[in-house]
């Protein structure tokens, strides 16, 4: 992969990583079963699932680009579905509540009504079917974006470095992109998101622009370190 293509890969991957956070349902108040979503901040949850995707992509490095990217996406989606299924289990048997969304009254997929099952004084709890599907889409995007950054950096630096060193540096850049680009949407989401049914999806263009700027800086930095230095 030539450095310019690698740079474009880093920029596209970085933007996808930022966008993915909008799809992942998460809310810190969810820890008290007082809000729909996985019971932690959207940024850190997206980072966690993206890094699980990077770990999965680490098994595939050296294969073709689609394989590495898809492997990362699947690893990430596997993490989020395990987390959502078991979080719903805790809500069902640990606190005794059914999954309920606050952002819609009828589930678009199952058609089940939400409001009657919402405990009084709360804004929903755990993840009903549509919200969970949104989480899977977000994780697929995040894992794919992170893996694209990872493989782009790896392809850029592998001609000038030993293979194991190149993998490690590419992994660190991939993890760094998650820690930066997943935090940027926090300014839009302000600690809570119900995924693709949330009204905050309309603010995605702000995330897009800010992640574009940050990703360009990251890509230029990596390009400079590979080509210029």
């Amino acid at each position, binding site marked *: 992969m030539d450095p310019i293509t690698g740079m474009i890969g880093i920029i596209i991957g970085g933007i996808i990583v930022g966008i993915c956070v909008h799809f992942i349902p998460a809310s810190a108040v969810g820890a008290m079963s007082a809000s729909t979503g996985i019971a932690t901040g959207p940024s850190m949850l997206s980072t966690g699932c993206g890094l699980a995707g990077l770990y999965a992509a680490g098994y595939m490095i050296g294969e073709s680009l689609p394989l590495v990217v898809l492997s990362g996406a699947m690893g990430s989606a596997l993490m989020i579905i395990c987390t959502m299924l078991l979080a*719903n289990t805790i809500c069902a048997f*640990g606190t005794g509540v059914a999954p309920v969304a606050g952002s819609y009254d009828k589930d678009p997929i199952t058609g089940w009504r939400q409001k009657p*099952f919402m405990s009084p004084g709360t804004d929903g709890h755990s993840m009903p079917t549509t919200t969970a599907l949104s989480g899977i889409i977000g994780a697929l995007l995040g894992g794919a974006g992170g893996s694209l950054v990872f493989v782009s950096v790896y392809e850029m630096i592998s001609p000038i470095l030993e293979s194991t060193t190149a993998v490690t540096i590419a992994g660190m850049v991939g993890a760094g992109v998650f820690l930066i680009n997943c935090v940027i949407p926090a300014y839009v989401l302000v600690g809570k998101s119900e995924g693709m049914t949330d009204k905050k999806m309309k603010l995605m263009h702000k995330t897009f622009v800010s992640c574009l700027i940050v990703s360009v800086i990251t890509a230029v930095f990596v390009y400079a370190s590979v080509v210029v230095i």
Partner: protein
Amino acid sequence: MEPVTLTLMIGVGLAGAIAFIAGIIEDAESDAGSSSNPNSQVQLAPQIGHIITYYDKAIAGEPPQNGLWAAAACTIALLLSWRFADLGMGQYYAIFFAAVAGAAVTALVQGCLGIFAHISRITSMAAFKQPLYWHALLTPLPYSMGLCFLTALLLTLLSFVASGILGNSFAPPLIALFMGITLGSIASGTGDIHYGAERLYQHLPFGSGIAISNQGDIDLKGEYGFRNSVDTPYFCMRFGGTITALAFGLLIFLDGWSRLFTFAGPWTSIILEAAIIAVLFIFLNRLEKYTRDSYGPYPGQEDA
């Protein structure tokens, strides 16, 4: 059976088992230190007049904190294992003893962080007449450090298994960072619900989320005397911790398991993981149906 496949199978089983135990311990560690999302309730309590005896070391999010412990322990372990190997120790002994040393250093650092974090957290509540009780700090501190030691040790061993046996291309400290942050997110997203929505509010009726108006009104009495943070994992480990462990153990085990087969070449693991995700999604939908049918709508809200 091919010896390579057998080794991989043993590696996948070992990684899954280590991940499962690490999940239980990590969730207990975060519960003992109130170091995740329910810490907001612990901090709210003095503001509504409750004097608390919880240990509160929440000055960093659970995922990065846990990632730091794991990465630090694994880095020390990797460097020490090279040194031990140079001294003539066998490879596996070197890794194990180095992992113990790395985890011990991390536990000491966590203890230092815990002391200062708790003191600063509690003194910031002085305006609400919250005293700094030494027993609230000194009783759970060694317990929390012990749990941190075990988490760091297990994640270090998991990283060496993933790198050495399963063939992940990343260096062990980087895998430890990934696993630490991932486990922190999973524990924060699953196990904490049992702590935040149930353990802290056992005086409220079972079968409801915690209404915003009740937040901060946490339990102050334990099984005997005032509740401290040693009591929390005693309760949460039995369900919240085990479910957290199942989530992380399933992730590591299923991810490794999908790589044991080769029927579609390198695409095999992707096809299998997609199938697993679809099956788990169906389970999630059936669980939703089951809970709706079992619990029914809230009284008075049937027509809401």
